[in-house]
């Protein structure tokens, strides 16, 4: 089983205040820590689990800066075999279609059985890249996958739908799966493993190396224009409920009932 697993280096916005640049066109990321996108971490684990069961190889694909190599080495320490890091300022990285074209450029022309991506990225949250990638590669896909079964050259993907419903779809191989968090428990990459992973191949390429025309993936090609980012105004209303526990519970229940919340 030959697998490509696509991962993204994203800022963790949960622990630092989000600030914008003065033009309102970009987030000031100087105070954020960066790490692998949450869902992509599960995609790495799932690809390694599939490899451990079925044999084969896992290639990591990522578009990102030099600093993201730590994240890539961690994925390789967990069991991925080699990696391609794409770095090129011309890529309109805010547009998932452009990103999908670049990743497709790295995969096209090579044999593969599965491409795994996270179902959604922590930063832009569009949940499009994996699906667009399947379209460009001309293979079937399943999105928001919570369980993968591989039998007789086919993939059975359990998809998470609204309201907790699960849908099971069967796909022919090759296919693209966008992986939902919670599908597994990502393992830890010990430092000795990361050190070992230094021996594995990590290719750094640009658009020219991939044979992708810059005019197909740059800001001019993108149909998304980023006009403005802004921080929503914070509004809050709080009511402190006084009294002994019984009174508090009664008041709270009545507020919830009046508000139509229960």
């Amino acid at each position, binding site marked *: 089983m030959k697998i490509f697993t696509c991962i993204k280096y994203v800022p*963790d916005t949960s*622990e*630092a205040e989000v600030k914008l640049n003065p033009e309102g066109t970009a987030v000031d990321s*100087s*105070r*954020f*820590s960066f*790490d692998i996108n949450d869902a992509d971490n599960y995609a790495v684990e799932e690809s390694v689990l599939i490899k451990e069961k079925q044999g084969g190889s896992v290639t990591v694909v990522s578009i990102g800066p030099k600093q993201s190599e*730590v994240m890539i*080495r*961690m994925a390789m320490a*967990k069991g991925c075999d080699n990696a391609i890091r794409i770095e090129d300022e011309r890529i309109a990285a805010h547009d998932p279609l452009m990103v999908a074209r670049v990743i497709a450029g790295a995969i096209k022309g090579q044999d593969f059985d599965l491409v795994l991506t996270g179902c959604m990225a922590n930063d832009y949250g569009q949940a499009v890249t994996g699906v667009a990638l399947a379209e460009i590669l001309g293979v079937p896909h399943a999105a928001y996958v919570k369980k993968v079964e591989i039998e007789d050259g086919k993939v059975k993907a359990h998809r998470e739908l609204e309201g907790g419903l699960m849908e099971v779809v069967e796909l022919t191989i090759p296919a693209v799966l966008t992986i939902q968090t919670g599908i597994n*428990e*990502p*393992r*830890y*990459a*010990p*430092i*000795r*493993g*990361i*050190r*070992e992973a*230094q*021996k594995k191949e990590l290719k750094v390429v640009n658009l020219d190396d991939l044979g992708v025309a810059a005019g197909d993936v740059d800001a001019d090609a993108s149909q998304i224009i980023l006009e403005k980012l802004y921080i929503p105004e914070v509004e809050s209303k709080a009511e402190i409920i006084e009294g002994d526990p019984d009174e508090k519970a009664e008041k709270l229940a009545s507020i919830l009932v009046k508000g139509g919340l229960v």
Partner: protein
Amino acid sequence: MVRPLITFSFLRPIAGLQKNIPLMRGMKMTTENQTFTEKFDLLGCIQCGRCTGGCPVTVRTNLNVRRFVYDAYNEELLDELSRVAEIWDCTACHTCAVRCPKGLKPLEVLIGLRSLVVESGKTQPTVRDALESVFREGNPWEKPRATRSDWMEGLDVPIAQPDEPVENLFFVCCTIAYDPRVQIIAQNMVRLLNNAGVDYAFLGEDESCCGSEVFTLGEEGLFEMIIEDNTELLNAYQAERIVALSPHCFTTFKTRYPDLNKPVIHYAELLDELLEQGKLAFKSGLSKKIVFHDPCYLGKQSGVFDEPRRLLKAVEGVDLLEFERARERSLCCEGGGGKMWVESESKKERLAETRIKDAHALGADVVAVACPFCVLTLEDAVKALGYEEEMRVAEIMELLGELDIEQEKTNSA
């Protein structure tokens, strides 16, 4: 289950490291080729049982450290032993090491077993996240490195420069730097030092985790890397000594950093010295019954018992009480040994609650500590027991911050 001692198979190395691997910055090659038995000197154990007899967590978990020391002779059992949940109950308080008549460190056998788990990648998610955070951001709390000095906001804090000599180079600690409950330890320290006219500087955002909890969680490779990076960082400064705010950093630097080129002291030692030299004087008092809880990493591991007591006694009005289990016999609060990230399966009373009950029985108004982990665990226990109205847990720096400190004489002259 009692397992027989089947065979002495000393041949299998615990970590199959290979040489000639390109290294990432700060990574050091381990010369790891000892067996588990050699590494922990298991044959030195005479099975006297003082380790288990003194182990504080045995009252609430099934951990039997003597059993592990015995079973770990058998290298074929190591994998199985590493899957026993109790290896994560150890708080690394070091009571077993203090009491061992052969000078062994039974707790390190448990840490060695944890290492097998960590090397396999199958750690608990909380442990995984803490370790990854140390690797990426230099702290186990999943906070950005860039916000490490946010606690300094509004304070006048000198930041150390490698080419500027300084007497006291302060090391804050990840928990004190990031946890809003204990940031006050560092903030009050800065106010006190500025008032007393002490020559000092902090490291700022260059400071990185000392690795105390990385070591006890069993991540040997990461700990080696941290030691190398921190030694290089700290040795580059022209400081006479390093002053650690947390006993965990203090003891880790003292005992596990062989190449540091300057001595390390705990802040209680510095303040005690200032008191003795007449450079620190309190203008106001504190009319409280205070009992001092000896943190394991300050007391039984590093022998600093009297300095914090002298500091408290120097405050007018303080009635200093003593626990029955004090000094070397101090009861662990269960905050160390990586326990901040691993919950015991036991539902029995936490040791911190036992400790707070003891303090309550003594009639203490304040349980004074000199460790950020002790503040967090003991304060939780006060809340769990419903004693919030009657008593409080306070770090010594919190208490001193409530006093008026006499301005340094040379300032007013």
